[in-house]
């Protein structure tokens, strides 16, 4: 169910604004028919989340199409013009470099980059927020980015894991666990994926697949004689949509105010 300002929201009033097979329409229908109550302070806030979820899905699909490679931290690679590869194998934004350009470069010069699955998820989230915010606001809000697994993530992105979720939505990050992974390849102890909707997921190193296909791929990476299958956890990691909308709204208001002032001045 969707509630705006405490009132139940009829998705029929906006669903026509989105194409039938779009991520936004799929998400709206899932939110409206699901068990969770999705609460918003305004219609704009709901639309912002729909747009950001669409951008997350697109950022995941684009990363899958790119030449962005899979590598364990010790073998990770990054374009040194934008990122400094740290001793841990993470990518630290170089001083004086625009974070928007650096994130975009991962997509543009994807062949110069390689890392493992969790960092890929974080890259997807930064890219999606960049596409929602625009470069100027993104540079201001995310001036120091360090890409390293789930560590050092900017607070403004607000990525948080939740265990009590009943409606899994496109743009959520899910986790497939592989308890009997072969110790020789700990990188396959699990797979972080972006929910793309319609039963498809993007996992870096595995590609775009269904849940069963991902489980099958992970099971191939188990030790000989393993008895436990890989499985999908009932949790999801999500950015703080509300907080990101608040940042976006403040920026839009500031710009409008500046525009009005300029107009009055002229």
């Amino acid at each position, binding site marked *: 169910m969707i509630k705006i300002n405490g009132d139940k929201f009829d998705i029929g009033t906006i669903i026509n604004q989105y194409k039938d097979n779009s991520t936004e329409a799929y998400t709206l229908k899932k939110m409206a028919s699901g068990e969770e109550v999705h609460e918003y302070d305004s219609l704009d806030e709901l639309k912002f989340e729909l747009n950001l979820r669409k951008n997350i899905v697109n950022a995941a699909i684009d990363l899958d199409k790119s030449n962005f490679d899979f590598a364990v*931290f*010790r*073998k990770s690679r990054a374009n040194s013009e934008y990122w400094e590869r*740290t*001793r*841990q*194998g993470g990518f630290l934004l170089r001083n004086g470099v625009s974070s928007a350009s650096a994130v975009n470069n991962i997509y543009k010069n994807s062949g110069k980059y390689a890392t*493992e*699955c*969790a960092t890929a998820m974080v890259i997807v989230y930064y890219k999606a927020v960049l596409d929602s915010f625009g470069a100027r606001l993104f540079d201001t809000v995310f001036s120091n980015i360090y890409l390293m*697994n*789930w*560590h050092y*993530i900017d607070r403004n992105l607000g990525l948080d*894991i939740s265990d009590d979720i009943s409606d899994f939505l496109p743009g959520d990050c899910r*986790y497939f*666990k592989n*308890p009997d992974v072969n*110790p*020789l390849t*700990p*990188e396959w*102890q*699990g797979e*972080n994926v972006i929910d793309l909707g319609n039963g498809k997921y993007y996992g870096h190193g595995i590609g775009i697949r269904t849940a069963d296909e991902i489980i099958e791929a992970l099971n191939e990476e188990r*030790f*000989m004689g393993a008895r436990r299958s890989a499985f999908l956890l009932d949790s999801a*990691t999500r950015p703080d949509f509300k907080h990101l909308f608040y940042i976006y709204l403040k920026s839009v208001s500031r710009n409008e105010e500046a525009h009005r002032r300029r107009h009055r001045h002229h």
Partner: protein
Amino acid sequence: MYDLNLDPVSFLDKVRSDRGIEDLRDFFKQLTAKDLKGAKDFINDKDLQFPTLFVLRDEIQRNNLEDVLTKKNKIALLIVKEILTDKRDNLASEKLSFDYVQMIHNVLKWIIETGFKDDGMDDDYDRVLDISAILLTKMYKDKTILNILVDMIFDRYKKGALVHDLVWAFFQIGDPQSLILIGEKLLSSIPEDVKIAARLLNFIPEVDKSITKEKKYTTFLNWMKENGSFLEYTGESFQQKTNPSPYKVVLEGKYLCKNICCETGRTLGIPSREENQLLNGFKKLDYDTKILLSNFSIRIHQKNIYLWDVWLHYSLEDQIKIAKIGGVQ
């Protein structure tokens, strides 16, 4: 604690420690050219340490010395090869026997025990240590190396090196008692150690808060005393989340004061019919009430088992009422 100075040192290890890795390589290269038998004897010295074998592995291969290596060295190099390449059949092709399985275990231990001091030599070396540690904890359930792993984890943290796989290896042992090795670091005189320990134990309420290290340690001990027997291993790792919780409290076990099998999360003893009835009601409660009842149960159990037994025989509603006022009247 692991002072290798007390152990006999092989000649090649002495060259490595006195003159460094490059000189060791040069020395061994010259030796193989002049005296292959002498080189073979040196490399097969029973006191040889793993880092030396690792450093000389290319030279050994170049001079076809693999066939004359001791079984320990031979297996160690096969393990290295298997870890650093995608070839998976090196060890499987060997004779499968219990002796051989035991031998691999011993060699993995030797790699960690004689190799940990050179952690940080290079990426490949560190990966070999990481994977050997995972094999020992995950497959062999070997707890004897845990103290070494803890020291390696803390050293790497301080150097800013990669710890993810090593931390995962440590927790793969799936034994709550191993947490004590990290807990002890909360009392370290080095503030960085305390910070790292608190971070690794962040799933214990309050330990990662801004309180004195003594208070952190007491909090840790009290939590272990109250929850140690009711922990289930979750397998959470840094790949999954920022602050993984490798163990979680099984509230049902704590409520019945029945020890939990860490691997399965089920009670070790089979619950009676009456206990099962209680559990059915308990499972339907909200999380906060579950916490209230399970905390009350274990505390009264530790204080007065007779009163605990009386309390547990009340209806669930009465148990909640009593727990809320904090005691049996």
